[in-house]
């Protein structure tokens, strides 16, 4: 058995072991989740065919990506909410809190597994599913159906990935902070925050753009490239801030 150097600074081999640990402890739950999602996607695929409302090629070329993106986002956020489940019970907190790894490694491990690794696995699973469906259609229809992988490079996929990485950081914070119902509480937090933001934004537009909402439409911020860049940088900064807060909360977490 290889032992890890008990250094107090960040250790990559220890990070790998933390990731391995997180994966192994959760693999049964996650495996069930994957099967449920794959099953749901197959249902999405089969129903229109069974009902005869959609020809093969239409479905293969487009419709699978939308439910896949939905399940990717929802599944990932669920998974993220539960990644620190050990922390919130006095019976299991010792497993995480006394694990000889730095808080940064524990946080980085949780983030990597629920964002980057989760995305890679999701893409691989999606491609496998598409290949299976393609093979299935070849086998049973006996003719080639339009099939391409362009679906993974369209803007909808890109936007979903960007949104996921943003929201995922918030759910990671929720996973550290909330003791129970992490997913729902984080979701509620986001809704309340966004509602507040819209209200403040609406008021500002009313003040800046005039007395009516009509005036606000004349401000076309989204068409400005500089604004788009600044907005992206702002989003990245927000994610970094949320991840830093999550790390601090984890570092200061005490037994439940």
């Amino acid at each position: 058995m290889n032992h890890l150097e008990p250094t107090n600074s960040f250790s990559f081999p220890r990070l790998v072991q933390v990731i391995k640990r997180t994966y192994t402890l959760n693999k049964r739950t996650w495996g069930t989740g994957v099967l449920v999602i794959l099953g749901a996607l197959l249902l999405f695929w089969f129903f229109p065919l069974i009902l005869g409302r959609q020809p093969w090629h239409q479905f293969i070329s487009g419709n699978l990506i939308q439910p896949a993106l939905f399940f990717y986002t929802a599944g990932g956020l669920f998974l993220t909410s539960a990644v620190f489940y050990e922390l919130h019970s006095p019976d299991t907190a010792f497993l995480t809190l006394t694990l000889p790894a730095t808080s940064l490694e524990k946080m980085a491990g949780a983030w990597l597994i629920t964002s980057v690794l989760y995305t890679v696995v999701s893409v691989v699973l999606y491609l496998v599913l598409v290949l299976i469906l393609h093979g299935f259609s070849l086998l049973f229809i006996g003719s080639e159906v339009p099939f391409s992988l362009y679906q993974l490079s369209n803007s909808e996929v890109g936007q979903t990935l960007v949104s996921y990485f943003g929201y995922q950081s918030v759910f990671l914070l929720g996973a550290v902070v909330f003791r129970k119902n992490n997913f729902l509480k984080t979701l509620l937090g986001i809704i309340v925050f966004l509602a507040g933001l819209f209200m403040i934004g609406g008021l500002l537009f009313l003040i800046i753009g005039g007395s009516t909402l009509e005036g606000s439409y004349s401000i076309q911020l989204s068409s400005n490239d500089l604004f788009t860049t600044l907005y992206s940088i702002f989003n990245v900064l927000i994610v970094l801030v949320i991840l830093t807060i999550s790390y601090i909360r984890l570092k200061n977490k005490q037994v439940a």
Partner: protein
Amino acid sequence: MVTIKNLSFAFKKGELLFNNLNMDLQAGRTYGLFGLNGAGKTTLLNHISGMLFPSDGSCIVNGYPTRERRPETLSDLIIVPEQFELPPVKPFEYINLHAPFYPNFDEGQMNELMERFVLDRSKLLSKQSYGQRKKFLISFALAANTRTLLLDEPTNGLDIPSKSQFRKVMAATSNDERCTVISTHQVRDLESMIDKVTVLHNGSIIFDQTIESISDSLIFKRSDLLTDDAIYSEEVLGGYQIISKNIDGGQDQPIDLEMLFNATIDTTEKLNQAFIIEEAQS
């Protein structure tokens, strides 16, 4: 090895559980941490393991505050909580996942301990009985060979043969570099293993003596009549069980830790007085 300095802690504001608690735990000793329910034994172990942070003061293990949770400190410290759950993995998976974090973990020793405790290697840990899980965790903690070992009610949930096996295993694995703290209510299960008795009461340490010192200062005897020199007595069938000052250096009976514990709670000052005189004489 473990230094607790002016530690204060409260779960709720204004309700101090510990108030300026001081302790110094040495390597090579096994400390028996006793106290009534709610005295703060588990809370103290949680402070030593870095799972709780003091409101004031510090808890230092091997030179560093445990609240920093430095991997170097945590890899040389292990806790077996009283109440715990283990993940749904098989024993070998748990070992493969956690053992690499402990540089002195001995796989051979782990296998040996698992055999001695007759542990099931094929069943998921989460599906095993509480006693089986506890024996597994104790085995893991001992095989980790950390210099600080914290055991919270280790014999709770163990059957009689397992308790006996636990005592044998503890005796076989004790060493001069390890500081073991055992928190327990079941003093009779562990009295042969402990070499320092620490009693926690109302947030303070009211008694802290080695077995040697107890043996030198106190005498445990049975008497038909209640004698004047009794520091503490308990009525038993046909007489009294008495703790009195050991004047002539003899010892009629082995130390009865349960009775000693009762004495520390009921007659704290009187009991400690016997040690002050002893210390002054020496």
